[in-house]
């Protein structure tokens, strides 16, 4: 699985692509892409969610393929675009990472291991230490209402296999606004096995979260997620953990 070039192990897995949804991330995008190239040989596709800065130019210069969205679709809409790109181009595995440097490319081997060992179809890089008290309360509430037994529901650091990509590229998933409860419930309902993998995460280098930036957006997000969690209850089979 790993080959040694210089002194750093370079990760290689055939038919695997890294998807980075980005909105106004010109400050960090080049660094993030550079880190991925340093630790793996995976191609990187950046889905630009109608940024108003030079995210596209920076991403192209760093060697990524850029898919520029014509209208802003939000973080999940952009990620789904990437998954459709992966499906169309016959990739078997898709890794999603944030563009802000929170997720570390050196964690990729840990995140891919359960997939390579066929222990899981989807892995989620979870870091339960991150987040304020308020976020932790929100997460435990979401878990309780949805019945999902996973550590970090909101983490965008994930690996999807071909079946999961196919499922999430479907129109039912287009109805969703966020990638947490709705996406995970949909995967579990199709019998796709999801596994938590504990990884290290860094605080965002620049900018702010697209959910936790104002009280109204947090309120909307929480009401949205709780209603969705409630309605999707029982569609998922619980996995032994």
């Amino acid at each position, binding site marked *: 699985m790993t080959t040694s070039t210089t002194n750093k192990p370079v990760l290689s897995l055939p038919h695997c692509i890294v998807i980075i949804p980005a909105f106004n991330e010109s400050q960090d995008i080049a660094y993030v892409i550079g880190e991925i190239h340093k630790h793996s040989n995976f191609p990187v596709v950046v889905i630009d969610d109608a940024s108003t800065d030079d995210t596209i130019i920076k991403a192209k210069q760093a060697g990524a393929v850029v898919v520029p969205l014509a209208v802003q679709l939000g973080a999940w809409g952009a990620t789904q675009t990437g998954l459709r790109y992966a499906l169309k181009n016959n990739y078997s595995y898709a890794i999603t990472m944030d563009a802000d440097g929170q997720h570390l490319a050196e964690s990729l081997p840990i995140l891919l291991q359960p997939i390579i060992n066929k222990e899981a179809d989807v892995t989620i890089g979870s870091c339960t230490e991150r987040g304020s008290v308020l976020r932790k309360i929100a997460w435990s509430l979401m878990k309780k209402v949805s019945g999902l037994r996973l550590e970090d529901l909101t983490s965008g650091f994930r690996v999807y296999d071909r079946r999961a990509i196919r499922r999430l590229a479907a129109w039912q998933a287009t109805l969703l606004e966020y990638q947490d409860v709705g996406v995970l419930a949909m995967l579990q309902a199709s019998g796709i096995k999801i596994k938590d993998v504990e990884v290290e995460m860094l605080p965002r280098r620049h900018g702010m979260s697209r959910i936790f930036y104002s009280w109204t957006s947090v309120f909307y997000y929480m009401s949205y997620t709780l209603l*969705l969690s409630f*309605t999707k209850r029982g569609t998922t089979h619980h996995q032994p953990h």
Partner: protein
Amino acid sequence: MVAIITSIIGIATAIIIVVLIRRDHLHVRYGLWWMSAAIVFSLLGLFPAFFDSFAKYLGVSYPPMLALTVGVVILVIKILVMDIERSRNAIRLQRLTQRIALLESDLRETQGKPREADNNSNHGELDDARHK
């Protein structure tokens, strides 16, 4: 009796909303609005005295009139919001159509031949046509 009917309508609405979201027929964003409406209906049905005392407080002599007026005002606001969203969707759709047209003309120039319609391309799960 009216109170019971009102609360039954509220509860029935709530159940329908849950089923619609569960079957992917309704966006949660709109589900939230309808859910709130359902809760208000149920509460008014269960506590009809609330509106009477509220009307008295405002100095309205005939409480049902207040209920109707408030209801109509809320509906008008909802319809206005829907039209604002429709306008935004119309803009998005038009920009999107223009962008595709521009891209297609670029493609034709680079490939030197007309591009086949989308339903011929092997996009696998691209069943967009099915959903509007």
